[in-house]
């Protein structure tokens, strides 16, 4: 029987981003093994997240620099288009079990043995390595947008490879993470992303030059992959 006071303590620290070490690991376990099936904890998690949003109002509003909106507008350009101008030759990832080209995405190769998906879950040591890559000056880091996963794209300085790293919460029973590549507004399903919970990193076996950005969704395992829509596909708490 779980101690909900202890669980709430972890969830409070988690939403504030203030947990480290064993507490962070314990929170990851909680989010993986308990929260998905616990209505009370899911409600608490959403409520605490709401508090962190409301606290943002405490800060005095400050006009952003005049250069910010033009910078954003330049990137918006012709719509939901490329984020990076990637250069350099694409490099096929060593060890690829099969080379598969999906419609609309050139250069995709599968890494997983058996071709189960385009991503490879990395070890904790690799996670630390990707973290270090993130901090290198020439790396490109961008958010991966998702309803349930808090993740980033990481491109090392040579921009030849792509990683996804972040905190992946446990999903409800029967649901799975799915990874999509978006190019010129077209979504292409790359495969399931997982199994993954807590702080993890994936190597995504795709040529970074062929994708504008990545999207992670949660969807019913039994359903066919579909282009992400405007509402979450995660089951309601």
């Amino acid at each position, binding site marked *: 029987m779980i101690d909900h*006071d202890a669980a709430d303590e972890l969830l409070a620290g988690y939403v504030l981003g203030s947990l480290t070490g064993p507490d962070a690991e314990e929170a990851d376990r909680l989010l993986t093994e308990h929260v998905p099936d616990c209505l009370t904890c899911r409600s608490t998690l959403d409520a605490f997240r709401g508090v962190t*949003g409301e606290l943002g109002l405490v800060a005095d*509003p400050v006009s952003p620099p005049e250069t910010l909106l033009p910078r954003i507008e330049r990137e918006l350009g012709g719509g939901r288009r490329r984020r990076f101008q990637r250069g350099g030759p694409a490099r096929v990832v060593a060890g690829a079990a099969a080379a598969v080209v999906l419609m609309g995405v050139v250069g995709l190769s599968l890494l997983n043995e058996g071709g189960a998906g385009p991503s490879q879950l990395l070890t904790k040591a690799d996670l630390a390595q990707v973290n270090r890559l993130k901090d290198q000056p020439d790396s490109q880091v961008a958010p991966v947008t998702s309803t349930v996963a808090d993740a980033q794209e990481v491109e090392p300085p040579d921009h030849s490879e792509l990683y996804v790293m972040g905190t992946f919460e446990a999903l409800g029973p029967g649901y799975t993470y799915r990874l999509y590549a978006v190019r010129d507004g077209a979504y292409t399903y790359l495969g399931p992303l997982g199994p993954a919970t807590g702080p993890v990193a994936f190597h995504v076996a795709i040529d970074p030059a062929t994708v504008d950005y990545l999207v992670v969704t949660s969807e019913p395992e039994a359903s066919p992959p579909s282009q992400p829509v405007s509402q979450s596909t995660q089951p309601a708490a």
Partner: protein
Amino acid sequence: MAVQDTADDLELHRRLAAGDRGAFDELYRRYAAQAYGLAYRVTGQQMLAQDVVHDAFMALWRAPEAFDARRGSFRTFFLSMVHHRGVDQVRREQRLRARTEKAANLDPVEDEDPADAVAEAGYLSVRRKEVREALTELPAAQRQVLEMAYFDGKTQVQISEELQIPLGTVKTRTLAAMRKLRSLLEEAP
């Protein structure tokens, strides 16, 4: 007013999801100053704050489906995202260099268009006042640990060391503060 503005946010989000640039511009007009103020408060650096707000708006444009109205308001979703990214930037910066600027030195926002200023004030200022009042109702010790975590991006271990109190006390005070704020903010009209 608050209910209507929440409905407006939902409508703007619906249009945004359909690719409406006008809706994006309106959301930027509504939330850019608040988001930048928060990001600056957390990161303490203009460049980092710009990056945080830039990334948050770009993420919103690229995948509007990340917002789920069943889990809270658009405002809390967006500001929570900004805060999270701000804390992430602080952690990275802590590894790279010491912070040299403080948000306290910033001038308050000044809107060039008085009509815009009124529109934003009507939308956010009421709730801002409620949240600030709720914070003042926290016991000082709880408020201190909450503000160190939220606005300074400090970990619970760092707070424990700085205040020279047991880590367990930091956890207890943090939870008490979050629970009380949750209750107070849910009660607010």
